[in-house]
């Protein structure tokens, strides 16, 4: 049995179909990547998986349970964590409180009190290297630091699946490697399945993922092992094709 299964999911916004019969799966502790050009529906897919949107059609099975109709916070409690592409820290709270909220409402939520949550928060901040800035207001962090905060907050939830949305976009290559290694280590240590979504930094994907799904205009067009997909000419066509149409 897979940890998470997405079966034939369709999501429409008005007349536009953002996802069309999308199916994928993740196993426990597995790392997958979802790639695709801009506008191909990746963010919508993540939103459907973690409950921001309810799909019109199809089912989402998590640990053998149908979670299609569950709302986002219930899924978070079950262990689906998410880091946003456009970072969304709680700006008026300190870095530490941000991470603490992750711990307080994650899978451990009923088992820990605020003091224990604080401990977890500190641990995570040390892990991502933001411990020195723990008492800054989140709004004062720089762009890359916010990405790290997103990551720390998601990890503090002690998830079973971590959905990383463009976590390394806009970062210098050395930093990208560092973060990818970090995620990989934590994931292996705590047996977290990771779904990472990337647009352009393919390099990160190759270092990281075991399997790849390629999404184009709301449909999965390719899937399989990293090497296979990378070598497939269709991939190139998707990327170049969209570029020639002029859509950025």
């Amino acid at each position, binding site marked *: 049995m897979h940890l998470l299964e997405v079966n034939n999911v369709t999501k429409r916004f008005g007349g536009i179909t953002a996802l069309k019969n999308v199916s994928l799966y993740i196993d426990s502790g597995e790392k997958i990547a979802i790639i695709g050009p801009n506008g191909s529906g990746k963010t919508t897919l993540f939103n459907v998986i973690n*409950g921001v*949107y*309810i799909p019109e059609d199809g089912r989402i099975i998590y640990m053998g349970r149908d979670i299609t109709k569950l709302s*986002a916070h219930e899924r978070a409690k079950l262990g689906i964590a998410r880091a946003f592409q456009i970072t969304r820290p709680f700006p008026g709270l300190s870095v530490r409180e941000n991470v603490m909220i992750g711990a307080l409402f994650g899978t451990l939520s009923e088992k820990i009190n605020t003091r224990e949550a604080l401990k977890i928060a500190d641990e995570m901040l040390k892990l991502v290297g933001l411990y020195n800035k723990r008492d800054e207001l989140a709004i004062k962090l720089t762009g890359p630091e916010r990405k790290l905060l997103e990551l720390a907050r998601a990890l503090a939830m002690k998830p079973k699946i971590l959905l990383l949305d463009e976590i390394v976009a806009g970062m210098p290559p050395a930093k990208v490697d560092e973060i990818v290694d970090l995620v990989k280590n934590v994931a292996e240590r705590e047996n977290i399945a990771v779904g990472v979504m990337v647009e352009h930094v393919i390099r990160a994907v190759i270092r990281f993922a075991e399997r790849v799904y390629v999404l184009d205009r709301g449909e999965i067009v390719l899937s399989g092992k990293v090497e296979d997909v990378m070598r497939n000419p269709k991939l190139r066509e998707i990327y170049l094709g969209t570029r020639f149409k002029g859509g950025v």
Partner: protein
Amino acid sequence: MSSSQTSGKIFTPLTITLIIIMLVIGFVGGYYASAVSRPSAPAITYTYSVPYTSVATQTLYIERTIYQTLLTSPPATTPTTPKPTTPPPTLPSEIVIGMAVPLTGSQGEVGTAGFNGIKAAIKWVNERYGGVHLFGKTIPLRLVYYDDESSKDKVVQYTERLITVDKVHFLLSSYSSPLVFAQAPIAEKYNMLLINWGGASDLIHLQGYKMIVMVWTPASLYMTQAIDALLSVKKDPKIVLIYKDDEFNRMVAGGVRNYSKKLGLQIVYDKAYPTDIKDFTPYLTSIAPLKADALIVGSHFADGQLLTRQLADQEIDFGFIAMNIAPCYTDYYKAFGNLAEGIICPSHWEVGASYTPEIASKLGVEWFGPTEEEFVALYREIVKDPTARPPYHAASGAAAVLILVKAIEKAQSLDPMAVRKVLGEMHLITFFGEYKIDPVTGIQIAHKMILVQWQKGNLVVVWPPEVAKSKLVFPIPTWAEKKAGKQATP
């Protein structure tokens, strides 16, 4: 906002349960509670008559309706502090009167008018009369006041400040019944005498307060004179009654209802309207087909003006229109010009309601205070407008000061209890009219309403006949005639 879709569950079990609970509580509880909380009004009311000697020589009777509940509640005892016979070792250099008064907010206009009247009266006492005569000395009055912004919070705060910080000797009330209700417990707590010149609701005095004394006629008697006047010109009239849904006008309407029931008159339409009404047309379309003779309106300012405007637009004619408060002010004529002709306003007092020392001596009742001319002159000095016309609120405020001063002199004491006792027994005529209260409740029983009517651009006293300056015009010109320039000529 886009992602709020998933939270769109409206009828979760929780909300449904709550809605049901709410409905049950709302209807059952509301019905039950309303049944228990309403003052047990007409069914067991008890009416008694107080002999009342009018300004003219004949004796009239004023009808008083006191709720049964008052009679069964523990009787309030009249304060019986013995009168000090010897002067206290040190007399204060001035007697301080305190007042929290609405100078701003919804009651601001009337509050200001009363405030100016009070200042005029104090000026008279200090400058013309020489001060309060106490133990052979004359002591001037001083007024301490705060603006309570027509708000209950403020009136409570400032009433206490007046008593405890400013150490006033006596208190004048705020204006409007809700504010007087709010300040009454504080005054009572400190055993402070509160002269109520601004809260007309009878109910204030039926709560068992001992230290509140009323200056003007209670609300339930506001319009009864109007009905008398109407009966004098028209037999068996059909009356339309509409009134603003507030404490004061509800009492007014209740008075009209009881009085006409007693006389066997027919009220063909009897409805309230909300305080912030913006359109009377629906009421008017219901009233128009009834072809009634008289319209009696319990109103304040804005609503009274709006109603007049829309009556004129719809040309719904009545031979007799009596309206509270709004027509008593000159702004009314300024706003409507000729259209105001013939409109009647019940009033506690108007310029020209000639209560004079002569009338007082004829009746054998003591006279005190300035004459009407003196008062008007002083009022004009205070407001710095040589043509100003004091409304009855100003006169009522002034009368409160005069009555208080006379009572202090009679009691020869500054002790509120002693003064209250004197106030309960005193019978006095000022330019405002007669003063005599029911000694227990403090309700005014002698003061009498008058009716004034706009005739040829002037507000003229037309009722009661004894003090009338002109005859009541009935029926008044129709709206169409008034638009063509016809005036109400007796």
